């Protein structure tokens, strides 16, 4: 061996090699043992955890949103259904450059600024591996074009879904309302389990009121997926339970006939069955197409609706507040009898102007020189202000309020529709709270003829009338008649609260009704000239009303002014029920630009009565009234 440690011969080399080979082998063995130890650690000690993760890897829970319940009218006509449609979904995780992708995509499938804005908003509500809808209701040509270019857009897919459709469009928009995409605020409040996989929720109308019934229970699928999340097979499936179908009290034919009768004039009408509170029709003109809202209304459509001077989005039937005018007189007159302040036969002298004792300011009658001595029946028939001025003063605002409140004025009727307003029943407390001003006796006087601060909705008035027509029984108005699970027969009827009896003496009611019969059928009646009782097999009872829009002063009605001027200043009311002896329908109609209640609004009510009472085979109609509508019948004195 030399100084450099050189191996001298083959034997030494072999020996050194043997040592090194052994060392190398030992080293390798040690490393193999480390690797083997790692496998033991993974496969023995961490086996449970990794088993769980392997399972979580391959099994995905897929939500199956329930089909929304359908909505039918009282005869089973479909008012809201679900139709299959296609939408464009994006999985954000799979898109590298979102902006560039959207730009390219918009060349294939047109995307509006609204679509993109909404999409970006919903991006925030979803986790990055969840599908986010980009565009709903693709047209067939959009679908075809995308299908050709789909390979260029990883993470974007076309998916089928059920979308809400309202076949009658605007005609039921204010009753049924519409569904819309769940927004951020709603998302935060919804039960995540019940709404898993759901994109829409009832926003207004019945869709909102009965969301719980309509929504149903979601199902789910356990799906085995591969690494691309592509479903391979369904491991387990629990079907979604569809929402309940709703059957309404509303009659599609009456609703449409009412709309046709309005002929485009702005206003509202509500028809209620006095026997049970069933709402038969609920019309607001103008209306809007609820289908626009279902998959997100475009900004321009929405702006157009908002800026329309006739405010089509306003649900006039239950949110429009109008001074009731003379339509309050029958209720006030009934109050006078029921509270024992007057008898039906008591008369009041109408001279053309009414004065509060000791006050110089006068309150005018419709007829310049007055109607002379009138009793309750005549006061209603001829709509004599003086009778009710004095009655209001006699009652005092406190009792007037109390009495009218019993008929539902001043508070929501409790109908099964959201966002109903209660109008205004003026009272000293109300005025103090609202205007911080004291109450003047003159305000009590004009409250007697439905002027002043009064505000009622057509629904309130129809409800009050139905209560009166139905013998003082106050049924809470409702539009839902029955529900069904889609398989069995509808469950009839949908439970309603017990009605409340408001009046004591049937004779009091009879006197008031007599007055209302005269309105339509007596030559002295304010609606007689409109001729709405002519050629109708049943007796109609009604009351006109003309509410001043701007003025609450005693300024004389200037009949010389042209009708256009009056039309702009006045709301025309007509309320009616029929058949007068056993009422089946009570109607309130308001026209925003009507000049006089009797001539403008009454024909609409007549057309509604025609539809409801005559559009059935005569054998199924109620027996007609044979008594002719004569002066004698109307003028016959009523004895309590």
């Amino acid at each position, binding site marked *: 061996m030399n100084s450099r440690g050189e*191996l001298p011969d083959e034997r030494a080399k072999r020996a*050194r090699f043997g040592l*090194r080979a052994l060392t190398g*082998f030992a080293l*390798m063995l040690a490393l*193999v043992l480390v690797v083997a130890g790692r*496998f033991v650690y993974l496969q023995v000690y961490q086996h449970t955890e990794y088993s769980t993760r392997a399972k979580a890897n*391959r099994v995905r829970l897929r939500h199956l949103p329930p089909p929304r319940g359908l909505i039918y009218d009282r005869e089973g006509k479909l008012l809201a259904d679900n139709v299959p449609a296609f939408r464009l979904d994006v999985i954000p995780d799979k898109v590298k450059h979102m902006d560039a992708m959207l730009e390219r995509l918009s060349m294939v499938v047109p995307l509006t600024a609204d679509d993109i804005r909404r999409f970006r908003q919903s991006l925030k509500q979803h986790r990055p591996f969840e599908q986010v809808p980009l565009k709903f209701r693709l047209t067939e040509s959009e679908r075809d074009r995308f299908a050709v270019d789909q390979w260029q857009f990883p993470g974007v897919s076309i998916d089928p879904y059920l979308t809400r459709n309202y076949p009658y469009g605007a005609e039921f928009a204010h009753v049924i309302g519409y569904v819309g995409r769940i927004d951020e605020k709603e998302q935060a409040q919804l039960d995540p389990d019940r709404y898993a996989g759901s994109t829409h929720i009832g926003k207004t109308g019945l869709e909102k009121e009965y969301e719980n019934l309509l929504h149903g229970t979601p199902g789910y699928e356990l799906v085995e*997926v591969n690494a691309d999340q592509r479903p391979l097979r369904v491991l387990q499936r629990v079907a979604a339970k569809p929402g309940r179908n709703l059957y309404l009290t509303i009659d599609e034919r009456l609703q449409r006939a009412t709309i046709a009768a309005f002929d485009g004039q702005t206003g509202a009408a509500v028809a209620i069955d006095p026997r049970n509170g069933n709402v038969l029709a609920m019309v607001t003109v103008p209306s809007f197409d609820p289908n626009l809202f279902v998959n997100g209304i475009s900004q321009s459509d929405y702006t157009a609706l908002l800026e329309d001077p006739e405010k089509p989005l306003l649900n006039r039937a239950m949110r429009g507040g109008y001074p009731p005018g003379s339509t309050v007189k029958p209720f006030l007159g009934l109050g006078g009898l029921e509270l024992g302040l007057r008898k039906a036969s008591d008369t009041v002298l109408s001279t053309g102007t009414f004065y509060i004792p000791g006050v110089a300011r006068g309150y005018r009658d419709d007829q310049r020189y007055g109607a002379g001595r009138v009793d309750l029946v005549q006061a209603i028939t001829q709509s004599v202000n003086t009778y009710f001025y004095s009655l209001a003063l006699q009652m005092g605002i406190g009792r007037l309020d109390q009495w009218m409140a019993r008929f539902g004025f001043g508070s929501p009727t409790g109908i099964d529709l959201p966002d109903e307003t209660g109008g205004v029943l003026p009272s000293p407390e109300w005025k103090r709270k609202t205007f911080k001003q004291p109450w003047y006796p003159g305000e009590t006087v004009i409250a007697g003829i439905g002027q002043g601060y009064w505000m009622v909705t057509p629904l309130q008035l129809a409800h009050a009338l139905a209560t009166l027509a139905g013998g003082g029984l106050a049924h809470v108005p409702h539009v839902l008649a029955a529900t069904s699970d889609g398989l069995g027969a509808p469950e009839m009827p949908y439970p309603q609260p017990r009605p409340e009896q408001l009046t004591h003496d049937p004779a009091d009611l009879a006197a008031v009704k007599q007055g209302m019969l005269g309105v339509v059928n007596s030559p002295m009646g304010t609606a007689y000239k409109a001729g709405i009782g002519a050629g109708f097999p049943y007796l109609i009872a009604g009351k006109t009303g003309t509410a001043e829009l701007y003025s609450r002063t005693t300024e004389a009605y200037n009949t010389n002014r042209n009708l256009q001027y009056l039309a702009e200043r006045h709301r025309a009311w007509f309320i009616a029920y029929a058949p007068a002896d056993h009422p089946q329908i009570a109607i309130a109609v308001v026209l925003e630009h009507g000049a006089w209640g009797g001539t403008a609004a009454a024909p609409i009510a007549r057309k509604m009565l025609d539809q409801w009472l005559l559009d059935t085979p005569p054998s199924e109609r109620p027996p007609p009234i044979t008594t002719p509508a004569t002066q004698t019948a109307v003028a016959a004195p009523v004895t309590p």
Partner: protein
Amino acid sequence: MNELVASFGGRALRIGRRIFSRPRIDVPLALGLLLLALAGLTVLYSASNLNASMVAGQAVRFAIGGALLLVVSRIPPSLLRAWTPWFYLLSCVLLVVVMVLGEGRGADRWLDLGVIRFQPSELMKLAMPMMVAWYLHPRPLPPRWRDIIAIGILVGAPAYLVFKQPDLGTALLIVASGVFVLFLAGLQWWKIGAMLAALAAAAPVAWHFLHDYQRERVLTFLNPERDPLGSGWHIIQSMIAVGSGGVLGKGFNQGTQSKLEFLPEHTTDFIFAVLGEEFGLVGVLVLLALYVFIVGRCLWIAANARDTWSRLTAGALGLAFMVYVIVNGGMIAGLLPVVGVPLPLVSYGGTSAITLLTGFGVVMSIHAHRKWSA
């Protein structure tokens, strides 16, 4: 002239007789390789989703490799040693060619010869230990510094070409196979220590030369959850596959991780994870034992070889073989970064299987001719 022909003819006859004389393969080693190949085909059959043509293709490659093994085992080591520089040069040239006009998936590793496509870097894995052994064969041992420097150039040049492909894993394995020769040649421990120290000092510099994706892999290896959908995905899914396999495994063709494609590259670099998932710890340990046996046998053959080249070549091939297994296994089990090293004779891939079997042909030749002088 006649004499020349006769002597040439006689020489050819002698060589021919040696080649075609009765098989002189090492039976234990051959059995080990056969078992390994069968295990490899079985796992591949499952990993490829019962793709019989894929398995058949791999079997054909094994057959080609086996034939080459038998042929090479007949060639005397002296001749193999003489051919070594040419083989090394050829491999270097091919590496240059693949660099100029190569094609591959992201990295230029493949050479398309029309009929077959292969990776010259795999060839280099075999050529490198033979070349370093050839260099050391006539020189005094242990290697001197100037030898180390010369070997550094011999190893560094092709390793750099492979690194540039870029294939860091294979480059490191090529370097390792050269270093094993030095180690087996009896390089003094203090020199080994000095080289390791120099390597540690150079590491920050090397980091500078790494490609972004390579750095990414190293960083991701250190913390896989850092990029769970990117390069961390491979490691996480691989560990899930292995861990969920448990002791006995999910059974043949029952691995959800590979079947549902969560496990990437499950027929090639990550096939070990399929084995771990379907055959469990038992399968893993049996396979590792088989590898250890094969390497041990290689080293035993090397220890009994007649000359320096044979000893060093056989020993280095055996150690390198084991390193492939350790690197691949370490990667599968989340011990090492993802470096794209196949599991020898199990991963799907032609060049690797054929060159490995050819390498074992060299070992067989060394074994068969251990009694003859060079």
